[in-house]
């Protein structure tokens, strides 16, 4: 690696570079990241990330009206069939796409949204045990991995998601996941109602809470934190 730095680097024309990148993204077994392009594929060539991005954009445009498209996912660039052909292409595949159980999807969602998370924490939220089979499946698929251990008795594994998880769902980052249902408002109202009730019963005069919540003002917030 280091021996290359002192030697003079080679040059490529834009056309050569585009052709090479095209071939490389197509033949690579996994999505090809800009880092991998620069450090591995083009280690011998002198070129900037800016130029690379420009060429990738050109390539993207070249495939705009074709049967396949160049897309960017979490771990890099890949070519895939245009979505319009999805239905038509099904007959080509003998095996049916796997369906995932609700248990697996719920476990995966919890890991994706609440990472790092332990198995115990997943079980607490779902209210049922998480089978080892599910964790194993998620790990074998390369979607989930142990990213550390929680410093509590037993040092349980903390799980997080991999880029492969995002790749599978054609996402570039966790922030692209669908937004979670909002419940925070309700929780706030609960807290409010708690104060309201408290102030009434304690006989102290605190500022009155907004009245529109009255229908919700039944269940005070709990102090339970475990």
């Amino acid at each position, binding site marked *: 690696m280091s021996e290359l730095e002192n030697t003079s680097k080679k040059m490529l024309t834009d056309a050569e570079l585009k052709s090479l990148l095209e071939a490389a993204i197509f033949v690579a077994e996994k999505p090809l990241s800009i880092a991998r392009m620069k450090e591995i594929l083009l280690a011998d060539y002198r070129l900037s990330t800016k130029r690379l991005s420009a060429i990738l954009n050109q390539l993207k445009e070249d495939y705009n009206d074709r049967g396949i498209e160049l897309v960017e996912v979490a771990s890099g660039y890949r070519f895939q069939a245009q979505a319009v052909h999805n239905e038509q292409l099904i007959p080509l595949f003998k095996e049916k796409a796997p369906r995932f159980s609700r248990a697996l999807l719920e476990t995966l969602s919890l890991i994706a*949204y609440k990472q790092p998370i332990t198995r115990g924490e997943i079980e607490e939220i779902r209210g049922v045990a998480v089978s080892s089979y599910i964790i194993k499946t998620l790990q074998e698929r390369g979607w989930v991995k142990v990213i550390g251990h929680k410093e509590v008795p037993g040092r349980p594994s903390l799980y997080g998601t991999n880029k492969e998880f995002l790749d599978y769902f054609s996402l570039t980052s966790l922030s692209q996941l669908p937004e979670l249902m909002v419940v925070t408002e309700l929780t706030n109202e609960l807290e409010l109602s708690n104060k309201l009730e408290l102030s009434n019963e304690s006989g102290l005069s605190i500022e009155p809470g907004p009245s529109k919540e009255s229908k919700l003002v039944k269940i005070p917030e709990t102090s339970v934190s475990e």
Partner: protein
Amino acid sequence: MVQQVLPLALIRGEVVVKKPQDLFIPPDALEIILDTFEGPLDFLLYLIRKQKFDIMDLPIAAITEQYMVYVELMKDIKLELAAEYLVMAAILAEIKSRLLLPKLVVESDEDDPRAELVRRLQEYEVFKNAAEELDQLPRLERDTQLANVALADDFKQATAMADVDLSELLSALSDVMKRNAALEHHHIQKEVLSTRERMTFILQQLKQTSSEQPFVEFSKLFSVDEGRQGVVVTFLAMLELIKESLIECVQTQIYGQIQVGLKG
């Protein structure tokens, strides 16, 4: 949102339970319940949503009653009931009994006994929902097909060279030194090594000589710009090489230039 429980609504059979509200299930359908729901929270959520209860104002008595009916039924027909369902039954019963207690003293941190359950139900619903949305995302295998392209026929794969860290090399060196007693009384000094390096350098220079002219002039092996130290190192290197019978020095005439060549 709850489409997975639709089959239950289709089941009509003998009425097993006394109080109405909704949804009564013949025993043979109970097995389906266990398979259909992801545990007691999921099941409770179903009961709540089905009857349009306000989750924030949970009618605990009604819910508990319904829940117990199912649990009892499942026990009756000896279905193996997951422990979580029984735990939930206990929780519901406890909440119910606490609500029945007259509120005598109001402590500042008194809680509505339902609060924790509501929090758990809400939190579970968030992720149940998230899982459903995740399932809708376009995904590989089912919705997205990747392009496969072969390498050209005459493509030849190569094996990469392993990377070595200098520290690994140093620790190998240090290990071998420690193991070998003979080396231990060598002092590791700059001079010694530069001599070794110079020995290699000299041998290389001598190797480049042709067969007609196998010797190099003694003086040509020294480089003036290295200064005194360089001269000393080169000279030591030559002595060492001579000692090890690797090179030889010849003089064709008295006071003539000393010629240095590889031995043999």
